[in-house]
């Protein structure tokens, strides 16, 4: 048969987007190997497992289903070998040395603890994952979460890293039960929207810290963590399936890198009754953890199990540019959804006088001791293109109450009219927000206009 149309199809000028020409590649992966890929922001690739088995951070991929990845650094691992079809531009390489066996063993070990917990009506393991930046903490947390859900468990996943959000916007600390498959195309997936979701959405409980590093303001960070732990513990007490599974806690890399950070680890260990610590990649951190916790007992008298795991070679260093793009993508996704499911946010006008806005002090801790937690500020052009966290609290509440409240959602300051004393605000939906206090943090940084 003739192949029609190839030559005459279109003028060469339309070939302006070179990426689109990327050919379809097929890779054969050996058992126990990993295909790592990086897709630049603004680009996407389609991946299809043609045969065999494959997983992304523990979530099994369906065979012959096309997955689309945008702006991500990720990897597909196979236990049994597989054939992958890749369509689109990406950086990629194969890895045959992975720590997956120790990771899956860790999972089986946790399963044993969960079985015991269910048997005795106790709590499943509260697992803390620590390690320096780019050691693969989040990937390990995701892997353990995915393995647990595959086996019918419902782990409570805690994110204490405000730099990178989990089902929310950076700056938040969250607790999220996972009962269903993780949306491999969108990091952790999506929080609820008014419409249906092709992958079951997850329901995070969010608190707003609003700074990039826990060490920026430990006086703010610690009580929020405490509040998060309290809520999570309440859920565990109430929810037998999650209780039997336990928690998996992700941490910011920075707290694994020095004295101040170690104190924060101790705080997390105590607040979340951590009884298992997985140390990724760092010998020094491991001995420090050993020193701190070898004699430690949780509130219920349990000893802490400390496990050192190798960091995955697949952990790519994510530079500031990448982090920034990731942040922007998370914000966009929050308001506008993704290409497969677009969301329509609403804009509304807010009078300066109607808005209650608390600005997080950035000057450090002495400041906050003198003037309170937050500064009650009048809207100004400084706020342009910033995000505000709308809190589940009343404008009459104390600052401590506002701090401890969970986040209702985020709004984006699209315009500030200082003359008319009005803000134009982008909100996910059209609800009055002026009866809620809003917190203005410095994280996430937004430098671009969303609209």
């Amino acid at each position: 048969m003739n192949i029609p149309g190839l030559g005459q199809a279109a003028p060469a000028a339309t070939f302006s987007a070179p990426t689109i020409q990327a050919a379809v590649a097929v890779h054969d992966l050996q058992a126990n190997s990993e295909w790592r890929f990086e897709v630049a922001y603004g680009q996407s690739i389609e991946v299809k497992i043609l045969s065999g088995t494959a997983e992304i951070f523990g979530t099994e991929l369906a065979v012959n289903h096309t997955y689309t990845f945008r702006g991500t650094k990720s990897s597909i691992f196979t236990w049994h070998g597989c054939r992958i079809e890749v369509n689109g531009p990406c950086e990629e390489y194969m890895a045959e040395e992975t720590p997956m066996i120790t990771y899956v063993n860790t999972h089986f070990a946790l399963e044993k603890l969960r079985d015991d917990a269910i048997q005795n009506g106790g709590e499943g393991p509260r697992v803390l994952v620590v390690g320096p930046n780019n050691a693969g903490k989040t990937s390990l947390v995701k892997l353990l979460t995915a393995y647990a859900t595959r086996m019918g468990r419902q782990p409570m996943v805690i994110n204490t890293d405000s730099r990178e959000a989990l089902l929310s916007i950076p700056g938040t600390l969250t607790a999220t039960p996972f009962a269903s498959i993780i949306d491999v195309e969108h990091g952790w997936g999506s929080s609820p929207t008014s419409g249906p979701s092709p992958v079951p959405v997850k329901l995070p409980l969010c608190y707003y810290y609003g700074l990039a590093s826990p060490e920026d303001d430990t006086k703010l960070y610690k009580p929020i963590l405490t509040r998060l732990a309290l809520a999570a513990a309440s859920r565990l007490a109430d929810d037998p399936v999650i209780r039997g599974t336990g928690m998996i806690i992700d941490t910011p890399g920075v707290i694994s890198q020095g004295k101040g950070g170690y104190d924060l680890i101790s705080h997390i260990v105590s607040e979340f009754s951590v009884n298992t610590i997985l140390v990724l990649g760092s010998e020094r951190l491991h001995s420090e953890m050993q020193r701190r916790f070898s004699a430690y007992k949780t509130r219920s008298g349990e000893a802490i199990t400390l496990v050192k795991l190798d960091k995955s070679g697949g952990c790519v260093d994510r530079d500031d540019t990448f982090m920034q793009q990731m942040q922007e993508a998370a914000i966009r996704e929050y308001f506008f959804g993704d290409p497969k499911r677009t969301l329509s946010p609403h804009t509304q006008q807010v009078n300066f006088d109607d808005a209650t806005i608390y600005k997080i002090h950035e000057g450090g801790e002495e400041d906050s001791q003198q003037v309170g937690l937050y500064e009650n500020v009048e809207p100004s052009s400084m706020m342009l293109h910033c995000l505000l966290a709308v809190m589940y609290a009343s404008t009459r509440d104390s600052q401590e109450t506002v701090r401890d409240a969970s986040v209702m959602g985020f709004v984006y300051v699209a315009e500030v009219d200082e003359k008319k004393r009005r803000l134009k605000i982008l909100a996910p939906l059209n609800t009055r927000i002026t009866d809620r206090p809003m917190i203005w943090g410095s994280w996430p940084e937004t430098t671009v206009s969303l609209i």
Partner: protein
Amino acid sequence: MTTEFSDDVAEDYKRALEDLTMNSRYEISNLTVIARENTEHALAISEALKSHIKQTSPQKKLPAFYVLDSVIKNVGTPYTIFLSRGLYSTFMEAYALVDNSVRRKMDEMLKTWKEPVPGALDTRPVFPRDVTGPIENALIKARTSAIQAQQEHTRSQQQILGRGRPGPSPAPYRETPTPPNAYRQPPPVQQGYNSNYPQQQYPSAMNGQQYGQQPHVQQSYGLPPVSRPSSGKFDYTNQDQRPPTQNYIPHNASAGSWQQPPPQQGYSAHDNSIDELNSDIANLITVFKTDFALNPLDGNIQKRLKALLDLQSIMQSQRLPPQQISEIKTQVAKLSEASKATPKAPKSPTPAPVPAQLPQQNSLSSLLGPGGQGTLAALLAKQTPPIQTRSPQPALNQPFKPPPVSMAPTPVPDTGSLFEKLLAAGIISGKPAISTPTPNIPLPANISGYRPPFTPNPSRTPLGEIPNDVVLKTSSLKILYEKLGAPCTQCGRRFQSNEEGKKKKTAHMDWHFRVHQRMTEAEKRGQHRSWYVDELDWIKSREVEGDQNTSNGDKTNGSGVTSSSITSKPKLQYLPVPDDPALASSTCPICTEKFEMKWLDEAQEFVWMDAKKINQRIYHISCYEDVNKAGIKRDTPEPVLGKRKHEVTTPTGCRIGKSNKAQDDNIAVRSKIKTESY
């Protein structure tokens, strides 16, 4: 051999034909014999036969066709010549008037006309190609255009499902040639994949040679058993009380001694032509991919590319009957013609509007439709039973066939868990800790003689069947794979093949289907991010295994999360689908959406979920409750928070809160309708 005499013969013949009310082998061969003995009156007899076919009621058309079939196959010339004249209109007009089952028979008959008479020395087809070809083409067109309406219906869903990926394999082929509603099907068939879905999609006896003996034809439609409409329908199998051998069974060896056994014309014809077709498809895909790259925004190209990719995966995953293969060939050829002519913008098919409730008899013109141009997409749509105007996704339609689950014995738990070893290795006793041993052991890790230095914990639970090998065994991995059952083709989630697993799987596929369906609607309606839940609601909410809340709770967000106020409702709220057609087509007065129909196993009937009849109108229960709640303004934040704060700090003393999340969403939905008033 006067004309008058011919007229008499024709008159007699006509009368005999009129008495032929059913598929009777005796009468048919009798009429065949008369035709053979009166070849000098062949013209008159042929005309009589044709005019009889034209004029007789739809119920009698098939037996008359059997006479025609028998005559041309057993007598042949000159009948072949006379009967081929106008065969197109004879065939097509009848085709338009008869019901689906008869069409199927006619299709089969037409197929045999393209072949030589089985066993005959003459190797030419029964009718010349130029006679059968136009009929065949017209049928393809008719099918295509009839399907396009349905295609339009499901297209958006398929796009969501497919998104350019060759994902969904369509439903197995059904011998359903055309069809909009020739049977008066009860609406419930749209849930056909639910419970009563027959595993056998096409009867094995269907080799295109048998016309009569298929008492279970209705089963092959993949529908729950339906009571046959009793009024005015010709039931060519059940009504015939004679033994089946009394039926005229063309070309069946048992039908008569004057026939040779037919060659096996099975569906397994997997020959070079299929390979050729496959490579043609692959070539076309290349072409369209290029086109697509050049015109990424051209919906037509996308549509066709997707259709081609779908087709390719169908061809790879299924064995299609030759009839369909040849249709595909025709379409592929057409498409490559088209792409040759207008490579960049293939014409969009014009869908023929096919109302959901067509009268039983379609006119020829409605069958042929205004948009005769067949497209692959439309052809593919044929894979869904066209009666299902709101049908499940093709892929969901497939009976669940779990790959063989490994029967490997449960691995014996290794003595000593990872943690035990680690603990013993000295974390607690202060000795230097070991890191997790033996990384990167290739699979299968077969360390013979390896015995962990620990005795099994006597308190180990029976669940400890799961081994905590430090050295991973392949058997351990089965826990994450084979032992979980077979994966869902859509998302990879695994389901056990036991009863419970099957139920879950059904509910899960149901969920996929509804999500795809609702995503289309949601896309039109516009959707938005919901507010996060507050502490109390979050604590009280329950994950319901992702998608198992088929009965309620996911009306607005498919969240797989149900809040306590929802779970505390009675488990299943439903209403049997009303018999009254006016009610059966009603929508919820509040949200104006249709009701979600579902086959409910325990009720053994089709029901509307989340529906309730209130004052002669049917509402979504959730909508009704929302509206009634709407009068109550949401609490001001302060008192709620005050209470909440207190409760959160005393974990066991939590109260059940109202579902703020659901309410917020509803507020949002309502605010869409209202103007933006803030």
